[in-house]
């Protein structure tokens, strides 16, 4: 049998998770409603609503601080249903493989070189001035 404190922590965890889900789903649905006026995806609108709450409140409520990182850590699983759609595009991917390789590999590496060079220039300047 579970000891009393353990039952208590389990219950506390459950309440924290339910609370977090209510906040996240609430902000997302509000963001969805806001999409009618602000032409941005529901997730971005929801994120700004929640961010605004944090900024106004001045800190992140304890239960959200505990639970959200756990959810974000397992976000990969929630992508899977959407990614499965790629199965339906197999033929198209075969047909365009060269264009895709060029567009994905070359441009990604080129962008990395560019960002690395610019960041190094700017951040090195910070180091010099701060010393």
């Amino acid at each position: 049998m579970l000891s009393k404190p353990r039952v208590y922590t389990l219950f506390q965890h459950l309440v924290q998770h339910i609370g977090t889900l209510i906040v996240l789903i609430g902000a997302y649905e509000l963001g969805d409603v806001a999409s009618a006026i602000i032409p941005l995806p529901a997730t971005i609108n929801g994120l700004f609503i929640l961010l605004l709450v944090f900024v106004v409140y001045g800190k992140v409520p304890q239960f959200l601080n505990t639970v959200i990182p756990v959810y974000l850590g397992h976000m990969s699983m929630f992508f899977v249903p959407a990614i499965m759609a790629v199965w339906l595009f197999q033929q198209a991917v075969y047909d365009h493989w060269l264009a895709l390789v060029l567009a994905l590999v070359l441009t990604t590496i080129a962008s990395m070189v560019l960002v690395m060079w610019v960041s190094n220039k700017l951040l090195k300047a910070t180091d010099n001035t701060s010393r």
Partner: protein
Amino acid sequence: MSLSSVSSAFGLTLSDISHAAMWIVILVLCYGFAIRLAKWTNQHVLAHPILITTTLVLTFTQLIEPDVQRVMTHLHPIKYLLGPLTVGLALPVYNQLPILRQLGVKVLLPIAVGGLFAPLSAFSVLYLLDAEPAWQLTILTKSITTPFAMDTATMLGGIAGLAAVFNIITGMIGVMALPSVNRWLQINDDKANGLVLGTIAHGIGTSKAVLLSEQAGAFASLALCVNGVGTAIVLSVLLG
């Protein structure tokens, strides 16, 4: 009130619910295995849980119910939850606000340069090679965090599933190419590495940056947040 009357009130049959439950259990088990595998291989980029889980679930669909579209319908509750979880990114964004205030344009500029160059260059390649317009629009989202990429792609008239795939491949290339870029430019600085990984390789890059150092991780999260939100807004406003 019986279970069947509850389910019919939502326009669902019991078979729908049991199929959904079965596929969600399969998905969770495959994911559980995938994170084990990632741990065993010391977080190797090719053993990324998204890649392994998707491959396993698709294998199961071929064995159990070859109609991928139907299985995707069964997994709809999981797909829905991605939205609210993405909203949870407000927490890391909030935590990065102090660095942003402190360094301002010095970090914003490299992120903006990468945030503009990466999608535009990829778009140009597909445009010049005459790929379908939906693909051209989809690839614009390749460097922003996957949930934003999927949402933004849908909004632009692209294909969400394809956006996720382009996105994940981009993230993996970013992680694999970093050592060569370091060597070629002879720059190996935690802040620059973090900004590069977060801006170009989004979430996959950020998880790599966290392994490099705490500072690289912080800069990568900042870049991921700023580029994700920024690109999503710019694309939605310009093309949505």
